[in-house]
């Protein structure tokens, strides 16, 4: 567990050069026109047992709102160190968030699931907005979210 976390932390650091056994993965999250302020999105991975493995991206800079990303918050205890260096701006309604990361090959076809928690001010919190298993065959196939995400896809 601990070694895997270390791997994730390494692989998610965008500034690091691509290391062996990793590949660039593009995560595309398109939001619906839900008619609210910018959405906070937490992208993170759980392992086969459902335990939190690491964070990939945090869209939204104000940590005081992270508690509304309730699954992520519960899993991490709201630890902002989990998203240090991988935090960006919140995503407006109807906009698309596209990020490219170097992800370890070991994450694919090994029972890992990518989750997105979403929250919008004065609107419902949407933990587990998206939950999609990381498989090489599933790459490129868009899946819809529950409330705010129109479609999510990861491309290798």
């Amino acid at each position, binding site marked *: 567990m601990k070694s895997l976390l270390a791997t994730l932390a390494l692989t998610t650091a965008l500034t690091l050069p691509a290391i062996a056994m990793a590949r660039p993965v593009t995560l595309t999250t398109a939001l619906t026109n839900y008619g609210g302020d910018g959405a906070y999105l937490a992208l993170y991975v759980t392992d086969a047992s459902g335990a939190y493995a690491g964070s990939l991206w945090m869209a939204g800079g*104000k940590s005081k709102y992270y508690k509304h990303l309730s699954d992520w918050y519960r899993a991490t205890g709201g630890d902002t160190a989990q998203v240090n260096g991988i935090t960006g701006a919140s995503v407006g309604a109807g906009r698309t968030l596209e990020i490219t990361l170097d992800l370890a090959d070991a994450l694919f076809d090994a029972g890992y699931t990518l989750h997105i928690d979403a929250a919008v001010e004065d609107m419902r919190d949407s933990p587990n907005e998206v939950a999609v298993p990381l498989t090489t065959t599933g790459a490129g196939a868009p899946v819809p979210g529950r409330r705010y995400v129109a479609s999510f896809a990861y491309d290798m």
Partner: protein
Amino acid sequence: MIRAFHRWPGLLALALVCILSLSGAALSVFPAAERLTAPQAETRLTVARLADRIQAVYPGVEQIRRAPSGRITAYWFDQGAPGAAVIDPATGQGVAAADPSQVQRWLTNLHRSLFLGDAGRITMAIGAAALLVLSASGGVLVMRRVGGWRNWFARLRGPRAHRFHVEVARIAVIGLVLSSSTALWMAASTFDLLPDSDPALAMPAEVSGETGVALARIPVLNQTPVSALRELNFPFPGDATDVYTLRTDQGTGYLDQGTGALLGWADLAGWARVSDTLVMLHTGQGAAVLGLILGLLALGVPVMGVTGVWVWLAGRRGRPRIRGNMSMARADTIVLVGSEGGSTWGFAATLQAALKRAGHRVHVGAMSGFAPERYDAAERIILLAATYGDGAAPTSATGFLERLRKAETARRIPLAVVGFGDRTFPAYCAYAEEVAAVALAQGWAQLVPLDTVDRQSPQDFARWGRALGEVLGCDLDMAHQPVLPHTETLTLVSRRDYGAEVQAPTAILRFALPKLTLWQWLTGGGFARFEAGDLIGILPEGSALPRLYSLASARRDGFLEIVVKKQPGGLCSGQLAALEPGDTVRAFPRPNPGFHAGRDRAPLILIGAGTGIAPLAGFVRGNARHRPIHLFFGLRHPDSDLLYDEEMPLWQAQRRLTRLVTAVSRSARPRYVQDALRGDAAEVVRLICDGARVMVCGGRDMAAGVADALADILAPAGLSPAMLKAEGRYVEDVY
């Protein structure tokens, strides 16, 4: 100094604070509307029962929130589709859409960030800081103006825009301090500058692993009233390790979904409570009435912005450039200005120009720059000193008195003091008087006696200029008119003459109302609005210096009436005295709100002599509501100059005038109006103790005599004219 702290944040952040306050005022309506429209839970309803009702209607419920307004919102999933609604707690049914209104969202984003993200948030925080600085500096200025916190709501005097500015400010300032300081707190919290108000409660390590406890069997939910609820999160369906999460006003807890047991609880930190309270105070969410009040007070900001800019511009207009200013070492005449708003500088410029024309080398500077040791060539020093508020030094005279007291080694140059002030203030020219007294005590010779200029009166200043000219042996032409107002042509309708037999030819002149333009009618400009006691400036042929007369009529009387005594050699009074019906003069109105009778029912004691009867007669004429009016009128001889002799009996019969007491100065036993007051002391004291207002109009000597007489009369009752003046119950119009 304080004024600069008020002026510059005000001017620089004007647009910002106006956007902040207008959007804030608009937003303040929403919590109240929400409070009124949201279905409220019955008192004693528990969270367990509420959740039960909602779950019965929406089996997929995953979150229930209660807003501080009492509005309850539920979020659920129904066959994979998300749903949300405002809930009627009595039935658990949804009654309205849950999403916030687009208008409110738009206003909120404008209010806190101008739609510019973090840069906008910082900008708005700066706006809030500017508002706080403005409130604080404005508070100090108001305090100085009215003379201490205890007089905070004292009656205001002075020019209209300035008065209106302060009138709004002293009510709004409390709300603005509250709104702007809480805004700064919220901004600091948003930028994580404050300690984390909500420390995370760790997930329970152990859960029962069972699911499906009935809501009614969870003790904590049964004990928690809905009024304390903030949020209840249901466990994720199918995840036996998940728990119920409950947030209340007291704290946060986790509840087992199998047993209903409390698995962990964290009380709300004291810090978080403070934070919640401040957010409530700022937004009005949970305090709707306070929110509405704050919103209303915020509307004062644009009003103060407009009047503040007006005051600033008026001050700037009154401050001309001094041309050809000499250095203080070479000047033979040093003119020093102690000014608060800047208008006194205009008089300094007029004086400098006149002295220059008379061949003098003049240096003009601020009184705060007083440096007698450097006045090498000076033969005289002239101080033009305004007074701020309750006798304080005006801004540009800061520290002058200390320098004057310390200047022991300096050469004692002959010195003149002119006080500038507003006679309606209790401490009229008090600072100038103090300066003159200290100078005398320090052994500075008096160039000309202390004189005063009331409300920037050009006549007062010209009169002092003549006195100075006599001492200097030259003719000083000091026609100072700050801004020449737009004049209108008035046509004389009738005249009545008095006093020729007692060497005081006096006339009551009645003019027709000039026709109003549409613009004047709409804006109240020109002669569209005036009352008895207001002034009229008349521009005589051959002079740019207007002469002011008190009006004896109000607009509703349908004419303009003044009382003019022909002065020997007087240019303006001579021309007026020669007017025949049909002749015209050029004139403009000058409001004089400090000398209005007012609308209340308190008795009036009107005291006047000679032409000073004019506004007082106007008050009596307008007294249709039979307010008790006691008129003390000083004249020379009842057969010759009893002005308004035809109307007086009529007014008494109509009960517009309660009593007329005359004092006749040309008789076997000469009596002045102050003697009449003394003779009637008991009644005067009784009236004043009953709340009567004293209004005095006439010459300076008469006004001084009346003040002395009243001081003597009132002393046994523990009262004084100064105390009445501070309450606005003793006003003078003196010429």
